[in-house]
């Protein structure tokens, strides 16, 4: 059955450096789709171009050529304010270093995307409480980010990313700064969100354990997609082994 992909990347290239100077091509023609409800991982070593790719998908950067469509919007044609609005309404973002605002309480951090869309405080409250209940962070809503643990911070960040019902959730090494237990918690939580609410997730990571939670993994190397791995009916442990084997041969 053919469905409209939620993310569609067509032959994108990204070159750094001005013409005439020494140029560096970070992305050399990337093509892939993400279907609705999918949990996709992008793996690659440092410098492979995966962060550049994610920045382009999140309109934080623009490709030199090629097209990107997210939720039926062509990103390369968006103007400045449209790009900001796109990030605010269509994309949820979880970063390695949490990116929480330390001068706002956790509640205010989560409610921020809603207030940016001018949702009234009254209307925002049930939304924040709903997501807080779902992620079990109700008890720490009134604290400040500096008063909670790294794992809790990442849950707050996830709540902030999900509160405005994004079309897709991007994760940029979200477990990178977490201990193994917190990392496992977060990944399980992402899986639940993905399966129960059908929010597609795109995870950029170099950690095989994180990647083992994905249904499909794209391996990126030197600016091109090398291998693609599907989990299929394998359980997570078996898939983890497959990833390790692939990484061994891929690199």
């Amino acid at each position, binding site marked *: 059955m053919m469905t409209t992909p939620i993310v569609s990347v067509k032959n994108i290239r990204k070159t750094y450096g001005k013409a005439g100077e020494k140029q560096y091509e970070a992305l050399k023609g990337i093509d892939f789709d993400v279907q609705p409800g999918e949990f996709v991982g992008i793996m690659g070593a440092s410098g492979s171009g995966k962060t550049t790719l994610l*920045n382009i998908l*999140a309109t*934080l*950067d*623009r490709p*030199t050529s090629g097209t990107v469509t997210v939720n039926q919007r062509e990103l390369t044609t968006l103007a*400045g*304010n449209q*790009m*900001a*609005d*796109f*990030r*605010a*309404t269509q*994309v949820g*973002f979880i*970063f390695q270093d949490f*990116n*929480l*605002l*330390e*001068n*706002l309480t956790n509640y*205010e951090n989560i*409610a*921020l*995307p*809603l*207030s*940016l869309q*001018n*949702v*009234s*405080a*009254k209307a*925002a409250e049930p939304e924040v409480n709903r997501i807080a209940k779902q992620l079990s962070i109700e008890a720490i809503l009134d604290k*400040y*980010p*500096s*008063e909670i643990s790294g794992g809790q911070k990442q849950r707050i960040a996830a709540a*902030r990313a999900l509160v405005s019902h994004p079309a897709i959730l991007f994760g940029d090494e979200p477990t990178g700064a977490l201990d193994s237990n917190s990392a496992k918690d977060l990944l399980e939580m992402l899986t639940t969100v993905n399966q129960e609410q059908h929010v597609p997730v795109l995870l950029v990571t170099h950690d095989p354990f994180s990647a083992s939670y994905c249904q499909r993994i794209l391996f990126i190397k030197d600016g091109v997609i090398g291998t693609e791995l599907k989990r299929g009916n394998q359980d997570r442990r078996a898939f983890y082994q497959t990833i390790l084997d692939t990484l061994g041969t891929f690199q």
Partner: protein
Amino acid sequence: MVLRKLAFTGIKSRIKDYTVLFFGLVISSAIFYMFEALATNQDFIKANGSMVTGASFIFQFGSILLTIISLVYIFYANSFLMSMRRHDYGLFMMLGAKQRKIGQLILTETLLIGTLASLIGIVVGWLLTATLGNYLMDQMFSSKLKGFEPFFLPAAVATLALYVILFLIAGVINRFGLTKTPVLQLLKGDSEPNRPTLKKGRQLIQVVLGVALLAIGYYVMANMKLLVLMSIPVALVTIVLGTYFLFNAVFVWLVVMLKRLPWASKGLHTFTLSQLSFRIRNYTRILSIVSILFALALGAITVGIGFQRQITSMATAQSAYTLVLSDPSATVKQEVKKLDRQLTAQYDQVVTKKAVYFNADQFKNQPFESVSQESQIMNQAKAGRLQAAKYQKISVDKMQKNPQQLLLNLPNWQRSKAIRIVSGNRFSRLSGSQHKVLMLRVADLSKSQAQLKVVSEKATGQAASSLPGTFAMFTEATALFGGFEFMGFFLGIAFLAMLASCLMFKILSGAASDKRRYEMLNKIGTRPQILRRSIIQEVGVLFALPGILGVIDVLFGLQMFRGLLLSPYDQLWLPFTLFLFLYIIYYVITVMMYQRIVVPKVKIDK
């Protein structure tokens, strides 16, 4: 050497921020030089003893204040400098640079910038003194003051010495501050939490204390007789402390209250409010200082302008005539014709040993005028408004009943004689020496002052006017109050430039650590224009608060000048507008620089 090269590339990459910092330092030292050029030039002060009465005291007072402000200014400028360099220094230390080497680097860098800035500042100050100083003097005294030298070596030496010493101190403080900080903290910057808590009891005490101290300060200023000269330091101390407590208590409370309003949940308002409460603890001290400086600067300009306006009002309310010329010669009459006159009358006199006689018929044709009741200086002061004086015509009957009112309009040598106004018939039969008096009033005293000077010099052969009429009064008052005004303007603008720069650099030194926050906001989809608006509001509050308090301080502070100024509250809008205009320019520059530092640029190639 690698390290030095690294340091210079660090500076190169932030050349714009350094330019602003450097520019601010140059302006600061230029103003200091300008001030010193006047304050330390004894020739100038002595030569204009009558003109700048009490100037010595005011100059010294101003000089001390300016030194203190310069210290505060350099301190904040320096912390801005450091906030830009923290990360670099952290990096050098991580790379294994010895603490001593880093210390040397900091000291060299700070001293180099300081010396260079003050040298350029002295040159700028010299040019400013030569142009602006002369212009101000031309405007106020319509002549140059004697002994006024745009370039004055002792002032240049004093400026350079003070700035180098201040920078040396700042450099040493930086060195110890930075080398004692752990490397990791330097790299990560400060992100300490600041929970705005409401401790009701403590806050209430602070509010009560703040208001009480302010009340004492205002009361002391309004009742100068109580403590006389001591009231100035007492008022300064109580008002500074009162302001500080009030800022500390009310501000946090206000932010918490505002956050509860529905308004707060719209757009970035929560963030803006949090930013403010996040900073206010760091800011209460500088905001208190700035509000006091604001008051001093605005007060200086207001009082200066008040004195200036008083000169014309006081002079024109003295008599209906600007000049009274006795037996003017043909050349004098020639010069009189060039004056823009409102009223000219010539009367014949017969002078005997005991009396001066006037012809009543001449007063019928050219009525004598006097200052109207409402324009009398005492009545103007009571009404609290200074206006251009109004004049009334006096009937011949009244003149004859009270001829004494002519007295002040007579030449000096006639004043001891009786004044008689007699009918035309009697007048023609009188025997005695015959004279003529020419009485004239110009349309605008200050506009005509140059030509009036020519006339009075031609008539008396002396530089200073000793002729009857308001012009003499005007020249004397200008000499007396002009010095005050000059000082007021000078001090006012110097203070304003310093305080606004202090505030600017204090705000900008926070910008480096704010950069990350604005980047995050950008990542989660905040429109750049909303980020900009948030900055406009945040910086606006930080500028407005001390401004408002400063204005209140001035309104009360003017009470002190009731003894010197007829109506200190008259036409306040003029100095206030002028001052706010300059203040707003600083605000706009700060907002623009802040935005340039923190608002992320959209990465768009081609």
